[in-house]
């Protein structure tokens, strides 16, 4: 590798800090510069990083830290604490209504993020908790999107509702809801097409679904490898549609996953699950503290 690994560098910085008896303001600033580099290398949004470093610095340069017996240790602790609090301090469960009622979940996100796969993964998870789940094919654009959902639904033993490719997604969603009520399903998962946040017509389509149907949880699916654009995407989806929860996919790769921090920081919405592979069982609970360590490369 051409560049020294930033996480190694960071480890050294922290080690040096820990070993120091006294810290100068310059010591703190120099080490926070390394932290900044590591966060940027992990794809955390530039603006989020700036804000983060500022608030850590304010705490770290405070008298109680500088005068403490182990100032280095204190700074490391602050970085970690602030990062975890930014990630959301505790794990959040996906909220479902009482089983006697129908809960509607809507998958949404950019193209190729992992919505269809995750919809099927979720369906399996909820089915194993005793729910009766209906998967709904609302992607009428991508070639073979319906077939993809059907194949995955079959693997999960979950019924797939489709009205073909010639209906508007909002009508398909309404039809599915009616069907679910009549046939005693209590969870409906809408698989929608991938769309860019700047595509007005496509964003309007999601708004329509929300206007015509009670969507309990609009779930933004985000590729964990996303770079600086993650904040733009999350902000627009949150403003225009409203995000209730986030699912981060493809964390079985070696990305540091800084997008998680960006999305959480700009929307304040909880990350619920992480995708850990292509298999339909590869969906796990999200733990903020583990993610914080991963982003820092520790």
């Amino acid at each position, binding site marked *: 590798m051409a560049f020294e690994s930033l996480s190694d560098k960071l480890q050294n910085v922290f080690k040096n800090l820990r070993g120091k008896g006294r810290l100068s303001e310059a010591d703190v600033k120099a080490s926070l510069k390394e932290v900044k580099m590591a966060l940027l290398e992990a794809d955390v949004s530039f603006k989020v990083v700036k804000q983060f470093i500022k608030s850590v610095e304010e705490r770290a340069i405070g008298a109680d830290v500088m005068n403490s017996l182990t100032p280095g240790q204190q700074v490391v602790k602050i970085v970690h604490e602030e990062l975890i609090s930014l990630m959301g301090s505790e794990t959040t469960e996906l909220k479902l209504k009482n089983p006697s009622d129908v809960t509607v979940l809507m998958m949404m996100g950019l193209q190729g993020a992992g919505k269809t796969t995750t919809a099927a993964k979720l369906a399996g998870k909820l089915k194993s908790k005793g729910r009766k789940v209906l998967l709904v094919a609302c992607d009428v654009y991508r070639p073979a999107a319906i077939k993809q959902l059907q194949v995955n639904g079959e*693997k999960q033993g979950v019924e797939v509702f489709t009205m073909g490719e010639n209906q508007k997604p909002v009508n398909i969603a309404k039809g599915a809801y009616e069907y679910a009520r009549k046939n005693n399903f209590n969870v409906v998962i809408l698989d929608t097409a991938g769309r860019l*946040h700047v595509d007005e017509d496509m964003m309007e389509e999601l708004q329509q679904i929300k206007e015509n149907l009670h969507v309990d949880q609009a779930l933004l699916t985000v*590729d964990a490898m996303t*770079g600086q654009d993650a904040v*733009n995407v999350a902000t627009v989806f949150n403003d225009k549609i409203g995000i209730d929860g986030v699912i981060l996919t493809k964390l079985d790769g070696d990305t*540091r996953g800084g997008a998680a921090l960006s999305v959480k920081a700009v929307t304040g919405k909880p990350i619920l699950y992480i995708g850990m592979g292509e298999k339909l069982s590869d969906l796990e609970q999200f733990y903020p503290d583990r993610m914080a360590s991963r982003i820092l490369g520790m």
Partner: protein
Amino acid sequence: SGYSAIDDDFYEEIEEILIMGDIGINATNAILEDLKQKVKEQHIKDPSQCKELLINSIREQMRVGEVAYRFEQEKSVVLVIGVNGVGKTTSVGKLAGKLKDQGKKVILAAADTFRAAAGEQLTEWANRAGVEIIGGSEGADPASVVYDAVCAAKARHADVLLCDTAGRLHNKKNLMEELRKINRIIDREYPDAFRETLVVLDGTTGQNALEQARQFKEVCDITGIILTKLDGTAKGGIAVAIQSELGIPVKYIGVGESIEDLQKFDADEFVNALFHQESND
């Protein structure tokens, strides 16, 4: 920019633009060092001149010549690879349409036998482009699909064989091995073919794209990049870091989901887009 001098604030603004464009902190630091050096040597005082210098050097670095597209004119086998969901199948479809329009005889190999409905998806693209497809059923050995497709391409005197492959994360050893095997089969069965291996990178991807390119290069002789999804707000700046570090050029960009939304890479447009953001916030 409204800067009157080349000072720390000015360099900070440049840093922000480069990082927000996903060029990455390492490449950004290297670019800034180099720029500062040149500013000193050439006694540049004017901020706009300095910025011009920067823009020009990135543009020159990213420029590709016509020779990069030689495979379009040869009897060739094009292998399209990359991680999950980046746009491989769609790009194969678009490329097929483009070559078909040039009057070429094109065959597609559906070597993603893993993902649900991957074959059906590529079949739809083959129909759109009006080209032939050699398929495999779900679970079939992808290398054997490629073998069949190579035989078909030779027998039918196809101009270009485009092979779609399953998405695979570069840190999955066995899946990368599978790619090596596919590669070997093409080499062995069709040694005369002009080889082109394109790695597809999602333009919204951040620093991980560098690692993707690096790892795929370990198993295949990558000849170029297709950078997709540039129709959004992402800039795809990591391609600059990849070009500097690995010397792999971007050859095409994806700018939408329709068959005509594939363009030859244009360094001028790319650099303009990279530096455009400053004007809208």
